[in-house]
């Protein structure tokens, strides 16, 4: 063994040890700490006491009830809107399909905290629509939108991205020749939809419905911004309990929610797998759009589609417009009468408004860089070597996907609210670093999943060829492997960076005065009565949307231009 290979070995083991320490310290220990806080008190099992204590709280009971019915209502309304979208985009012939597609794709860049704030800026007390309505109906209260209605409204139109992504894809997999066959045998349109099309897309419909249900149940930013004083959901309760210094109750509530969510995730994966199975045939005929024959039905469907498009596009358009408006016109004008770059100057100019922006950029960059470093080091090892160690590592990396973010957050808090020997007896709670650490853990599942498929997709002959030409391990990795996985790495880094800029749950639990991030500032601005704060928030939201859009466009380019696996002959 020569000197350089010996050095490689040292780095290899050092890397593994660091990763094992990180997984233990920042994932396993917090999870156990959360479980302990939830289930034990003074060393004995006290779960039932805590449950009954939770049940006695009127606010918790109200939040539970709100969550249950809001989840049910949201699932229903989202399914209706989502199915309608898919029908309009992929089944019926409706004029200007391209425009509708753009409109219906807005939830991809306009989700979570961004969307909650956006809806508030549109329909909330200082919203442009509210200003317009107030001009028409002076008796209308300014906060007409705030409460359960606003939350349901926001959920309905913003949780359709699963339908847009997955159900549309399922629809495209319907073999058109089966529809033609049914028609040739005299089936009516309804029969075709019910007996031929629906059975093919049904597994995906179920999976998408469950995903909606999961998202609605864990909804956090929407009730926080739009729920007002009286409508609360369980996620908010966890945060409240935590801020009341009852981490045990917070952990227990998060754990109970987590158990329900995990069950739902498993169920949705079951349906997803079934959906993939149905899509076996490759040589299918692409589905052809059907004209609606009944003229009245055609007009109604078209009108509804355009109304829906307006609902999607209006908040985005208003936000971008008002981000260029003087703060004084927010909540007064329906459309801004003059334009200025003052808001952008305030955010980007380095003053107080710049701080959350800078914090989020910095923490997200650090988290993405650390996440990528871990993934690029660990995934090739996990792909190449199969042992209990790599399998365990693999499971750990995917854990944060199944565990609810809030449980992880509470776990990190209870694990690091006192000196912890695993981190040199530091108290991390209240420091700058707990939030970025949370961001890294939160980012790992997606990164690992994407990078794993990228590494698996590499023909092992490339490695053999490079080895035969004398390239050392690190050299092969740098010159051969890294360029092959680079497009995926860039893509996944962009996606994750983007997610983190608008990440609400972890941020809400773990931020402090030193590192207040963008999503917290956006929510503050959204619920604040100060038009200057609102103006700054509009700029934040616009910047995040612009960044999301850029990532999506880059992703499309990369996936179009990237063909390492299909380059042969």
């Amino acid at each position, binding site marked *: 063994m020569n000197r350089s290979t010996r050095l490689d070995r040292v780095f290899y083991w050092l890397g593994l040890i660091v990763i094992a320490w990180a997984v233990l310290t920042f994932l396993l220990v917090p999870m156990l700490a959360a479980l302990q806080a939830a289930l034990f008190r003074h060393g004995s099992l006290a779960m039932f006491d805590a449950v009954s204590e939770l049940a006695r709280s009127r606010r918790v009971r109200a939040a539970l009830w709100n969550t249950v019915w809001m989840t049910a209502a949201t699932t229903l309304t989202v399914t209706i809107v989502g199915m309608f979208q898919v029908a309009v985009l992929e089944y019926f012939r409706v004029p200007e399909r391209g425009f509708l597609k753009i409109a219906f794709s807005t939830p991809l860049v306009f989700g979570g905290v961004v969307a909650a704030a956006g809806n508030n800026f549109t329909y909330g007390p200082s919203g442009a629509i509210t200003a317009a309505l107030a001009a028409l109906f002076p008796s209308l209260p300014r906060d007409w939108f705030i409460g359960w209605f606003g939350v349901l409204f926001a959920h309905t139109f913003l949780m359709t991205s699963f339908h847009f992504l997955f159900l549309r894809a399922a629809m495209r997999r319907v073999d058109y020749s089966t529809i033609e066959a049914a028609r040739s045998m005299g089936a009516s349109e309804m029969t075709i939809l019910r007996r031929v099309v629906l059975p093919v897309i049904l597994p995906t419909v179920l999976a998408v419905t469950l995903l909606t249900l999961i998202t609605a149940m864990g909804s956090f930013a929407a009730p926080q911004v739009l729920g007002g004083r009286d409508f609360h959901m369980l996620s908010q309760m966890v945060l409240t309990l935590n801020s009341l210094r009852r981490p045990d109750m917070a952990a227990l509530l998060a754990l109970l929610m987590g158990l329900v969510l995990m069950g739902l995730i498993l169920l949705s994966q079951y349906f997803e797998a079934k959906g993939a199975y149905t899509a076996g045939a490759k040589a299918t005929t692409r589905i052809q759009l059907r004209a609606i024959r009944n003229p009245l039905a055609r007009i109604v469907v078209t009108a509804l589609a355009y109304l829906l498009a307006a609902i999607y596009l209006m908040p985005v358009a208003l936000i971008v417009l008002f981000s260029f408006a003087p703060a004084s016109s927010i909540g007064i004008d329906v459309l801004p009468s003059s334009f200025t770059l003052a808001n952008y100057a305030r955010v980007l100019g380095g003053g107080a408004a710049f701080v959350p922006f800078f914090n989020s950029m910095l923490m997200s960059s650090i988290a993405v860089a650390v996440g990528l470093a871990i993934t690029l080091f660990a995934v090739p090892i996990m792909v190449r070597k199969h042992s209990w160690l790599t399998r365990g590592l693999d499971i750990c990396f995917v854990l944060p996907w199944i565990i609810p973010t809030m449980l992880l957050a509470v776990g990190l808090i209870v694990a690091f609210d006192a000196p912890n020997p695993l981190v040199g007896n530091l108290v991390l709670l209240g420091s700058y670093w707990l939030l970025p650490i949370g961001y890294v853990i939160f980012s790992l599942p997606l990164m690992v999943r994407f990078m794993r498929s990228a590494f698996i997709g590499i023909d092992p002959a490339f490695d053999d060829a490079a080895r*035969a030409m004398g390239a050392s391990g690190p050299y092969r990795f740098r*010159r051969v492997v890294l360029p092959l996985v680079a497009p995926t790495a860039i893509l996944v880094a962009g996606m994750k960076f983007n997610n983190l800029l608008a990440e609400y749950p972890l941020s809400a639990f773990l931020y402090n005065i030193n590192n207040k991030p963008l999503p917290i500032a956006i929510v503050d601005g959204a619920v604040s009565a100060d038009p200057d704060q609102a103006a700054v928030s509009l700029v934040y939201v616009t910047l995040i949307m612009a960044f999301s859009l850029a990532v999506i466009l880059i992703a499309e380019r990369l996936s179009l231009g990237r063909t390492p696996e299909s*380059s042969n*002959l």
Partner: protein
Amino acid sequence: MADSVLSLNKLDVGFPGMTVVRDLNLDVADGAFVSLLGPSGSGKSSVLRTIAGLLPALGGRVLLEGQDITALPPERCNVGIVFQNYALFPTMSAFENIAFALRVAKKSKAEVERRVGEVAEMAGISDQLDKKPANMSGGQQQRVAIARALVTGSRVLLFDEPLSNLDAKVRAAMRKEIKRLQSELGFTAIFVTHDQEDALTMSDLIVVLNHGKIEQIGDGRTLYRKPATPFICEFIGVSNELAPPLAARLLGYDVKGRSFLRHEDVLLGAVAGVPARVNHVEFLGAHSRVDLEVEGHALSAMLIGDQLPEPGSTVSLGIRPGAAHVFQEVTG
């Protein structure tokens, strides 16, 4: 052998705990084209990878120009490899692909350019060097792969089933191309394939492997005309295995063991032949295949020309004298 460039000496090939090929001996003459032919799982690719140093030998020695390279790491074995599907790095241009080994060896910029230029010139791809593999035709990719294998000065090139994923026409063109480059550039080629046509058309010498053992070594004509084992008989060309009673009837003596007769050695319309019933006739273009039944035994014949017997008719069947391959069981 004095002029052999590569020798395998009692080589054991495989993985710890599982020997795939045992006790392999082979001498390859300088400039020869040698094929390792065998069905999948016969161990031929493992032999290749062991020669290249990608798979440690379990025993025995590999000698390159008299020097023992058995225990050397792949980069010091000084043999070039052309991989299945060529394994050209898709993110690098043709130039960078060819230059890879030189860059690993930290050659100067001028030398890299000179040597890549030379080998590209020889392979006829000087005008393709800026292209990425995805933008090249299959033939150009193959030339880049060969240039990449030659650039470090290797005189022995190992081909790991490079043609296995191609359709018949492209495959034939690629064979010619490899053969042409080999005779022009004068390298020694070890070519692994499971396709008998690859082996028969290109090789000076064919090594047939089966279940980790050499069945026979020889040129294509020898393997076809004088198969050493029943396996060769069945693996190369198409043969009828004669049931012992039928063999006795056609050959005129008792056979203890197995006997084979190639389809083209079955003659129809023979004088004083054995009566055979025509069951089925398949027209295949250049030739036709006739399925017959002789005294309850099935037998197939290959006919050239358009004069074909009618199904259901009876013909007189004979065999080309001396054409049967008989493997008598050694008793006692």
